[in-house]
């Protein structure tokens, strides 16, 4: 990393950004007449102060790991996939179809099959924008965001007209059968204090596995090498005989597949049925997570846990201090995104300078 230690790049700088974001958030809270220290205390306790809090924090984090990895993989090919929302929604459809189609004898089989379904549907939803970008030059940002709306409308149609349980008023599928339900944190982690209500489930481990898999893919395989080369310089990739269409397609299919996998956590693990808007903005949070994590799986993991904590802590804060409204929570989350993503270079320059100078003598 150009003379600066790697931990500075992936840990110190994000932490400084985060501290700045929280500082500004504290000012905002003080402005509306609440005590920032109290509010922060509630948020932190609510998110990570108990097994109950962790049960939610890590559940949200699981969603963000999938969508964050999705954005990160596409980033390495310099594709800005902001269609995670739609790809995850379609992934939910894949999960629901797999879980409802077959009476699964055991959750392990159901997990494997549903993962395939989720990844396949997510990848398929990314394939069209990817193809348009690769062959026609239609900008992927525009097409993926349009596909989010199409996905949303498609799911409403399917849930209202096709998949709804006859006689029910709710636009949702039937609950998945017993054999397709994933063990929750209570089932395998009760000894750690997780309660029955914790939405955390085994999909968390799938997410961790995906982090490792993405790391191997990007930094150890030929494919990852080609994706990174293509992302750094398309003309150079062409010079090296790396095919642009193939690389774009593969990177985007993997990206869409990862976004789709989010449904294993949200739909199969938590809701155990497909409901309208199962993604709840996680596709967009994934962009912030990938930015903050600098498209590195470890960074994505840490950033996802941070955003999970923000979500859970924010919910607690809203509940505990009524003067801090839902909108105020969104402001705090937005500040974190602003400082870690958009204003990153503000901190990066000076900090990198500080770490370069002492190394000069050694070099």
């Amino acid at each position, binding site marked *: 990393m150009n003379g600066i230690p790697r931990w500075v790049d992936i840990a110190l700088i994000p932490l400084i950004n985060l501290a700045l974001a929280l500082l500004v958030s504290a000012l905002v809270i003080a402005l509306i007449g609440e005590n920032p220290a109290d509010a922060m205390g509630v948020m932190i306790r609510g998110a990570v102060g108990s097994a109950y809090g962790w049960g939610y924090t890590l559940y949200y984090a699981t969603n963000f790991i999938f969508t964050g990895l999705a954005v990160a993989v596409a980033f390495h090919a310099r594709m800005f996939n902001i269609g995670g929302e739609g790809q995850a929604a379609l992934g939910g459809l894949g999960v629901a179809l797999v879980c409802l189609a077959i009476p699964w004898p055991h959750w392990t089989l159901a997990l494997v099959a549903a993962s395939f379904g989720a990844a396949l549907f997510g990848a398929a939803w990314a394939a069209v924008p990817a193809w348009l970008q690769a062959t026609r030059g239609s900008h992927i940002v525009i097409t993926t965001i349009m596909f989010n709306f199409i996905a949303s409308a498609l799911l409403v149609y399917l849930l209202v007209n096709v998949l709804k349980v006859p006689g029910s008023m709710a636009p949702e599928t039937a609950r998945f059968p017993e054999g397709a339900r994933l063990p929750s944190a209570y089932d395998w982690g009760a000894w750690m204090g997780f309660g029955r209500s914790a939405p955390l489930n085994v999909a968390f481990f799938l997410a961790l596995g995906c982090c490792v898999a993405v790391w*191997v893919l990007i930094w*150890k395989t030929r494919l990852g090498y080609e994706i990174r080369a293509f992302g*750094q*310089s398309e*003309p*150079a990739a062409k010079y*090296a005989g790396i095919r642009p269409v193939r690389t774009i397609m593969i990177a985007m299919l993997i990206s869409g597949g990862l976004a789709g996998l989010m449904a294993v956590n949200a739909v199969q693990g938590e809701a155990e049925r497909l409901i309208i808007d199962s993604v709840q903005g996680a596709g967009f949070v994934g962009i912030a997570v990938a930015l903050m994590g600098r498209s590195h799986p470890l960074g994505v993991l840490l950033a996802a846990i941070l955003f999970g904590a923000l979500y859970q802590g924010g919910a607690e804060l809203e509940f505990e201090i009524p003067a801090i409204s839902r909108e105020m929570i969104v402001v705090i989350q937005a500040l974190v995104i602003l400082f870690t993503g958009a204003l990153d270079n503000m901190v990066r320059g000076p900090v990198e300078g500080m770490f*370069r100078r002492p190394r000069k003598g050694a*070099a």
Partner: protein
Amino acid sequence: MTAIDTIAGRPGAAAPGKVPAIELRGISKAFGPVQANKDIAIRVERGTIHGIIGENGAGKSTLMSILYGFYKADAGEILIGGQRTEIPDSQAAIRAGIGMVFQHFKLVENFTVLENVVLGAEDGAMLRPSLAKARKLLVDLAREYELQVDPDAKIEDLGVGMQQRVEILKALYRQADILILDEPTGVLTPSEADHLFRILRGLRDEGKTIVLITHKLREIMDVTDNVSVMRRGEMVATVRTADTSPTDLAELMVGRKVLLRVDKTPAQPGAVVLDVQGLRVTDGKGVERLRGIDFQVRAGEILGIAGVAGNGQSELLEVLGGIREASGAVTLNGQPLDLTGPRADGRARRDAGIAHVPEDRHRLGLILDFTAWENTGFGYQDRAEYGTGALIDQQAMRRDAQGKMQRFDVRPADCWLHAKNFSGGNQQKIVLAREIECDPDLLLVGQPTRGVDIGAIEFIHQRLIEMRDAGKAILLVSVELDEIFALSDRIAVMFDGRIMGERLPEQTDETELGLMMAGMAEGRRT
């Protein structure tokens, strides 16, 4: 009022003769750990052409950027016409009477010459009076300095030589007293360069001060009055040009004795390796870039392609390297190569035995944000020596990189360093190491020493000759005639997408090649 009256009327322009036009004292500038300028002191006398010469990365461009307000010096002061001057931005530089002609022109392609000259220096909200004034000035300048250019021509329709004149006119329109030119002849034919030098001499004789940044010793000797030599961020000498010689200057630049010529034995050409017949390329705009090219390259010889940049040489390399599609017939060792379709890509060309050192190593040859070891395998990542299966054997790739970097004397020999952190010469050595050591039958080389320091040029030329002597076919494209003469066994000249003719280096000279490069059909027969 003529152009010159306007400028001579500027305050400070009539200062006494011995006050230097530019004086820099103790200028230092660091970028992170790199000390680009160290305590630079220089005096540029009024009414002289002052050359600044130095290897790439010696700090010439940084120094000029400080003078033009692009960078702020960490320490030191600037005196213009004897007065301490702060130059925080280019506007301040223009006010101080400094004009700059960049290597890459800063012109608006679809504006006319007149509009470009006026751009940013309009007198008021209405354009018409400025344009009328500029038109008159342009006519005057054209008469005085041979700076003829059609004021109503669009930039995109002009050749590079003309575009450069527009840049000079822009500076003069802004009443520049001091004109800085950064590598101005890189894109010119020899005769265009001569014309430029006539213009510069004319400007000097009118009392202007010219600073010429270049790495070409010949230009320095031809046109400058004084010359300053920079090495590794320091100003090592300032001498009168008449009192020095190219050898002395080269030694000052590099810090040791250098060979300005390569020793080589006569070529022993073998069988035809590359046979190109009727090659045609049409670009995305429908312009025909190659209009029927025929030539052959034999084993054990170097065919040099001379020509001014932009006459189809880049397209030729791209077609042969599998980056661009074309029509025609190309065979390698008798086997036809696909010129369109999926087998017309870089991978297929490498498999066929063609290695390619591209003209633009930053854009094509390297991934600047990759480490050196990732770059030494770039394009060959599928080869079995880097492991089989989906995973890359990174240890093998690094071992391989270490070996290549050692054999090609890449400094620093640290394979974990990112490509962008190497100097131009060392970056080029990385590319050359990769493309030469894959043991190809045919090596395509574009501008092998562009932006490369003198010490490395010597090394690179020797490697290419060694490769030739090992019986490989080499196609060399270069805009540097010196390089073409130094390396080629045969020389072909390209102009406007055609090959104007072939010559043997010992039977031709720069004048003849210069004429052919300018499109004079057969040149002068020797």
